[in-house]
C-alpha cells in the first residue's frame, strides 16, 4: 500500500485547485446554485478535456487516465473544498464504478470513454421515495419483454438525475436486483429537479413508466454491484467531506487571527483556540482515514466494506462539526447569506445525510466487524 502524498499527487492537487479557483470560484458556485442543473458545461468539458478529471481513475482501455482512486480522492477533496456543484460524484464515481463493477465489457466500452472525457454525464438511480439507502429497499421492477427490459417505478434523491445523459438504474427482477442503462431521453421517463437544502448539490426524482432499458451485467448481479458502488461512493463522499472540512477550518482559523475583540485577536482566547485545536485533530484524523480508505480502493483490498462504513461515519461527524463551529467562530457575519460559511454548513449536513448518516454507517460498521 502506498500512503502519503507523492510529488505527482501534490502537482495534481495544485492543478485542480488552480483550475477551480480560476473557473469555478465560489462566486460561480453561487450563481450556479440558483440554477436547476448547477452545471457550467464549459467548465465541465474543460475539466474533462484539459485535466482529465472525470476519467482519472478509469482504466486506460476505457479511455481514462488510469490513475488510481488515491488520485481521484485528491480530486474529490479539492472539489469538496471548492463546493463544486457539477455532477462529478454522480458521473465519475457512481456511474463509472457501477459500470466497472458490472463486469459488462460492452457497457464499459459503450459508456466509459465518454464519461471519462466528460462528454457523457452518468448517474446511478438506486434510492427510492422512502429515502432508504439500503440495498434491499429497491422496489422498482424490471420486466423482460421480447426485445429487452422495461422499468416501472420511481427513484428519488438521484444525484444530478435531471442533468445526466445516462441513468444507470437498479431494479428488481425475478432473479434479484439488476443494473440497467437508460438514456435520458427514453420514452416514459419523467425527470423532476428537486430543490435541495444544499443548493450546490442537485437531486432529482425520476419516474419510470414502462421505460425501455438495457441490462448491464448479469441478471441478479445488481446487489453485488450496488454494494461495491455504495462502498466506493461512501469513501468518495468522505474525500469530499475532508476537503470541505479542511476549507471550513481554514476559514475559521483565518478569521480568528484577524478578527479583534477586546483588543486581541479572538484566536488568542482559549475558547476559540482550543476549539480550533480540537477541529484540527478531527480534520487530520479524517485525512488519515481518507488516505487509507482511498488506498484500500486503489488496491481493491478486502478492507473496503469496513473502511467505507468507518470513514463515511467519521467524515460526516467531522465535517458537520467543523462547519458548525466555523459559523460560531465567525459570529453574526457567519450567519449571513452573503458569507460562505452557510454553504459549507449546508453541504456538511447534506453530505452527512446522503448515502446514510453517521449512525447508519456505524451500525453497518458494527455488523461488518462481526458485532
Amino acid at each position, binding site marked *: 500500500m502506498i500512503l502519503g502524498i507523492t510529488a505527482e499527487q501534490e502537482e495534481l492537487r495544485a492543478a485542480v485547485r488552480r483550475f477551480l479557483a480560476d473557473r469555478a470560484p465560489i462566486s460561480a458556485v453561487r450563481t450556479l446554485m440558483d440554477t436547476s442543473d448547477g452545471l457550467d458545461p464549459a467548465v465541465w468539458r474543460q475539466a474533462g478535456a484539459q485535466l482529465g478529471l472525470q476519467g482519472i481513475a478509469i482504466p486506460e482501455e476505457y479511455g481514462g487516465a488510469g490513475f488510481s482512486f488515491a488520485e481521484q480522492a485528491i480530486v474529490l477533496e479539492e472539489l469538496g473544498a471548492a463546493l463544486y456543484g457539477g455532477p462529478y460524484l454522480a458521473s465519475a464515481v457512481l456511474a463509472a464504478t457501477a459500470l466497472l463493477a458490472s463486469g459488462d465489457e460492452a457497457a464499459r466500452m459503450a459508456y466509459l470513454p465518454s464519461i471519462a472525457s466528460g462528454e457523457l454525464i452518468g448517474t446511478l438511480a438506486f*434510492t427510492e421515495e422512502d*429515502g*432508504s*439507502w439500503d440495498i434491499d429497499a429497491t422496489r422498482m421492477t424490471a420486466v423482460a419483454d421480447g426485445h429487452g427490459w422495461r422499468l416501472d417505478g420511481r427513484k*428519488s*434523491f438521484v444525484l444530478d438525475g435531471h442533468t445526466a445523459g445516462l441513468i444507470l438504474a437498479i431494479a428488481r427482477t425475478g432473479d434479484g436486483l439488476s443494473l440497467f442503462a437508460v438514456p435520458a431521453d427514453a420514452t416514459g421517463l419523467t425527470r423532476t429537479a*428537486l*430543490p*435541495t*437544502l*444544499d*443548493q450546490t448539490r442537485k*437531486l432529482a426524482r425520476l419516474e419510470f413508466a414502462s421505460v425501455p432499458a438495457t441490462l448491464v451485467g448479469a441478471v441478479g448481479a445488481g446487489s453485488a454491484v450496488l454494494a461495491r458502488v455504495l462502498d466506493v461512493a461512501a469513501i468518495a463522499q468522505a474525500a469530499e467531506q475532508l476537503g470541505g472540512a479542511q476549507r471550513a477550518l481554514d476559514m475559521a482559523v483565518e478569521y480568528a487571527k484577524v478578527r479583534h*475583540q*477586546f*483588543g*486581541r485577536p479572538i484566536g488568542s*482566547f482559549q*475558547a*476559540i483556540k482550543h476549539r480550533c485545536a480540537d477541529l484540527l485533530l478531527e480534520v487530520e484524523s479524517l485525512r488519515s482515514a481518507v488516505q487509507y480508505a482511498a488506498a484500500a480502493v486503489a488496491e481493491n483490498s478486502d478492507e473496503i466494506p469496513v473502511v467505507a462504513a468507518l470513514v463515511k461515519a467519521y467524515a460526516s461527524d467531522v465535517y*458537520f462539526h467543523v462547519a*458548525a463551529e466555523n*459559523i*460560531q467562530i465567525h*459570529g*453574526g*457575519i*457567519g*450567519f*449571513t*447569506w*452573503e458569507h460562505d*460559511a*452557510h454553504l459549507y*454548513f*449546508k453541504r456538511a*449536513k*447534506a453530505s452527512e*445525510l*446522503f448515502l446514510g*448518516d453517521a*449512525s447508519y454507517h456505524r451500525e453497518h460498521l458494527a455488523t461488518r466487524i462481526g458485532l
Partner: protein
Amino acid sequence: MELDLGPEVAQFRAEIRDWIGGHAPAGLADLTDWNNVVTTGGYGSEQRAAAMRHPSYAEWEHELSDARLICPQWPAEFGGNGLDAVRVSVFNEELYRAGVPRVVRGMGESLVGPSVIVHGTPEQQAYFLPRIISGEDVYCQGFSEPGTGSDLAGLQTKGEVDGDEVVITGQKLWTSGAARANKMFVLCRTDPAAEKHAGISYVLIDFTDPRVSYRPVRQLTGAAEFCEDFLDGVRAPLFNVIGGLGNGWRVAMTTLGYERGGSASVQHLAYEREFWALTETARKRGVAADARIRQQLAWAYTQVEIMRFAGLRALAGLAQGRRPGPEASINKLFWSEYHKRLGEIAMSIEGSDALIRPPGDGYPTTGWQNAFLASRAGSIYSGTNEIQRNIIAERALGLPKEPRVPA
C-alpha cells in the same frame, strides 16, 4: 403540578383570569403562538403578525390599555401597573391559558422604557414613556456594529455635539424590526478621547429621518430578519440623550439587565410544543422504536422539562424575594445549545427527506429545516455563548477575569 406562590399571588391570578375572561375577544384565541417570540429569536414573528392583523386585535389592545396592562411591569407612575416579575409571569401564564396574545411594545417596552425610567429626567419620562405605551413610538436597537460583536464597547459610531444637538454618523448592524420602527436607540461615541467605556452616549433618534438608511441582511435561513443601518449625520436634540452625555454605557447595561424577565414560566411552552411535534414526526417515519432515536428524544424531553423546572424554580425564588442570579445567562446558554441539538435530531429523524426543500422562489424550507438552520443563531446573538460563559464564570462562580492586555 402547579406552583404554589402564596395566597396574594393566587388572588392576583384569580383576578387577572377573571379579567381576561371578561375582556379578551373570543376571536383572538389560538390565533397566535405568542410566546414563541420570547426566546427563539424571530421564529414566531409571523404568528404575531397574523394576530396583529386580526380585526379584534385593536379592541383587545384598547382593553389592555384601559386596564394599564400594556407595559404592566412598569411602575404605575410611568403608566404601567407595577407588576413584579412573579405577577408578570402569572399574567403571561393566564394569557397563554386563554390563548390570547400579550400586547407588547417590543424593545420600547423591554429596553428603552426601563432605561428612561431609571436614568431619564422627569421631562424625558413624561415625553418618551407614554409614546411607547400607546404604540406611537416603536424602537429598534442601534448597538452592534460591524467591528463590534462581543466587544460592544469598541463601537465607532460618532456622536458630535453641535449646539443643542448630537449629530450621529456611523454604521449599525443586526437590527431587528427596522421596518416596523420609527425610532432607534443608539449608542455612539461622543467623546473619542475618553477611555473605551466612557465617552459613549445613549441617544434616541428618529428612525424615519432621511439621513437614516438601512438594508436587510439575508440570513442563512433565506429570511432577512435583521438590517444593516447607515446613520449619516442624523441629528437629535440633547433632550434625547438618556442619562447624560458620556453615561451611555451604564444606561445600556441597565437596559440589558431588563432584557429578559417575567417569561420564566412560559418560556418552555414553545419548546414543548416543538418536542411533541418532533415525536409525531418520528412516529410517522417509523423511527420512534429505534433505540438511538429514543435516546435522543428522551434527552430532548429532559432538556425541555428542565427549562420548565428551572422557570418554576426561578419564579418560586422571585416569589420568596430572591434576587435573580446568573439565571439569564444560564438560560440563554441552555436553550440555545439545546435548540441547535434539537435541530440536528430533527434532521436525523427526517433523514433523506431533509435533503429536499419545498418548491418555490427564494429559499423556502420545511419547519424542521428552518429550526435546524435558525437554531445556529441562538448561540451567537444577544451575547455569544462564549460571552455568556464568561459572565457565568465571573459573576456566579467568582472566577477571575481575563487579565487586561496592555494596549
